[in-house]
């Protein structure tokens, strides 16, 4: 067995028992990247030298005694998490040469615990997309079937974890960008409650929706990474002062006493038959484990895509105003006036999807349209939030599909942005409501493509999701699966 095949918890035991060194584990992952990344295309940059130095430092710490849970464990990072001294591109030409002078809080936390960072992975430009195909540098393939999308926007994170190029990854989720690629690539992805994890040093897309979370090969690893990255941070005023539980305590067999809500609106027209079948089976597994199931209603689900694309685009148009060629990033060198420099820089630096969202957002916020679009969307957001609050009066968590279909072929929605937006319908609401959501492997399509199960819970109830996911994993035995590459 190659050590890159180990889960984080297995590697932890091997490292602590001195059966394996972090240098061996890290070298094994680097070798794996060399052998499969020509097919998978997850990585934008591999920081081999730094990774080996971090591994050696971890080995020295381990030799001295008890270490943090993530010490010596190799990770990949979505390329919108700022890494001191290492280029952070956000998948965009406009940040092609941006070298952050500081680490994001989550990166700082990983480093403090002695984790190893292998490099930065692909994503849709500025995290705007569902396939990672708008990444300017490399487009990840679905490790289960190259030619199919890895999902997005954290497609590089999901593909690198599924292809066993790393043991875990950090991604970000604004409308499903952790859960959807996790589902399409057959790994576990958790979007924590808004405010659970600091966003300091995350390149902002839509600040009221963005949240950082782990992509891992099994549920236990997800809980371990959550332990390592959660918590209030004075540098992110929206991070929340809440006690952080030991998330691994939630991982116990049995669902007795828990009520699982089944939202009828998530099983409507457009849901692929195989996906529906996999979710049905998961519901039965939870019943078998002792859970009670109840039907719930989230009546405003059909409006969430419209709300999301107005609010996310409005926030993006404001956040992305900073890319003007003055302080960092790409600058068009030919412009003679300041205004021309702004316009040329932004026009040449941003891709089509980013421009489209900036235009929608600018329009929705512009004089005369603000009430009709932005304000209206924010009001409907309240109705969506109320739906969840009402649903959680009769259940402890909600089970559903993650996406209406398994992964699709590359290039399938190239000329129809709205069709692609609509594929996010089952994940967007969690961001609008700020609640946690998790995707855990549930089965495969007849084409051999993974199908995930989505679990959503009330604010700060990640533990309930991890417990249910753990029980599903016991039933499906789909933890830590690797495709033939």
């Amino acid at each position, binding site marked *: 067995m190659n050590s890159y095949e180990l889960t984080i918890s297995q590697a932890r035991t091997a490292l602590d028992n001195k059966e394996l060194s972090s240098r061996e584990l890290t070298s094994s992952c680097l070798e794996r990247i060399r052998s499969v990344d020509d097919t998978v295309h997850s990585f934008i940059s591999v920081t081999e030298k730094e990774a080996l130095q971090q591994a050696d430092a971890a080995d020295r710490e381990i030799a001295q005694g008890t270490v943090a849970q993530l010490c010596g464990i190799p990770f990949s990072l979505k390329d919108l998490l700022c890494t001191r001294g290492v280029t952070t591109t956000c998948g965009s030409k406009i940040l092609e040469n941006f070298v952050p002078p500081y680490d994001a809080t989550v990166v700082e936390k990983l480093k403090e615990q002695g984790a190893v960072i292998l490099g930065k992975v692909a994503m849709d430009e500025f995290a705007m997309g569902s396939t990672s195909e708008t990444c300017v540098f490399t487009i990840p393939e679905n490790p289960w079937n190259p030619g199919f999308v890895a999902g997005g926007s954290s497609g590089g994170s999901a593909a690198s974890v599924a292809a066993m190029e790393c043991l875990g990854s950090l991604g970000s989720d604004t409308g499903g960008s952790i859960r959807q690629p996790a589902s399409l690539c057959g790994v576990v992805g958790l979007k924590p409650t808004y405010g659970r994890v600091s966003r300091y040093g995350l390149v902002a897309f839509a600040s009221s929706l963005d949240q950082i979370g782990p992509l891992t090969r099994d549920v236990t690893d997800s809980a371990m990474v959550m332990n390592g990255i959660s918590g209030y941070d004075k540098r992110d005023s929206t991070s929340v002062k809440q006690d952080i539980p030991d998330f691994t305590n939630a991982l116990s067999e049995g669902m007795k006493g828990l009520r699982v809500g089944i939202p009828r609106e998530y099983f409507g027209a457009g849901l692929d038959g195989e996906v529906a079948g996999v979710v049905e089976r998961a519901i039965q597994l939870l019943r078998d484990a002792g859970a009670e199931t109840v039907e719930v209603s989230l009546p405003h689900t059909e409006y969430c895509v*419209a709300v999301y694309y107005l609010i996310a685009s409005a926030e993006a148009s404001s956040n992305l105003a900073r890319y003007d060629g003055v302080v960092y990033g790409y600058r068009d060198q030919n412009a003679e006036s300041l205004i021309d420099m702004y*316009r040329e820089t932004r026009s040449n630096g941003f891709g089509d999807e980013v421009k*489209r969202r900036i235009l929608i957002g600018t329009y929705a916020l512009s004089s005369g349209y603000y009430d009709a679009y932005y304000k209206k969307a924010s009001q409907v957001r*309240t109705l969506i939030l109320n739906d969840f609050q009402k649903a959680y009066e009769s259940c402890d968590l909600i089970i559903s599909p993650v996406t209406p279909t398994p992964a699709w072929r590359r290039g399938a929605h190239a000329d129809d*942005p709205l069709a692609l937006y609509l594929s996010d319908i089952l994940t967007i609401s969690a961001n609008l409501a700020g609640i946690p959501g998790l995707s855990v492997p549930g089965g495969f399509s007849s084409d051999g493509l993974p199908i995930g199960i989505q679990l959503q819970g009330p*604010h700060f109830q990640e533990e309930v999701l991890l417990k249910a996911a753990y029980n599903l994993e016991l039933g499906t035995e789909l933890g830590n699966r690797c495709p033939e590459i």
Partner: protein
Amino acid sequence: MKISRKEVEHVATLARLNMSEEELERMTVQLDTILSYVDKLNELETTGVAPTTHAFSINNAFREDEMQESLPVKEALANAPKENGEAFVVPKII
């Protein structure tokens, strides 16, 4: 039509984006499709519904105004497309 080509041109100016003729054509059609879809929200009566800008209420995050170390000038300028050692340099404004 929900949005005209002229309006797209105006919004592009507000957003400091240049658009070629071909881009303007395409973006007008795509934005029109998206805005027509978004019209769906008008099916809902929202008079009196408070807008949500933040998923759960948090109070203002105040902190003491304390002196802290800031980014050294050299590091702050390290990513600048053009600088003169102490400031960012941009094309002439006036």
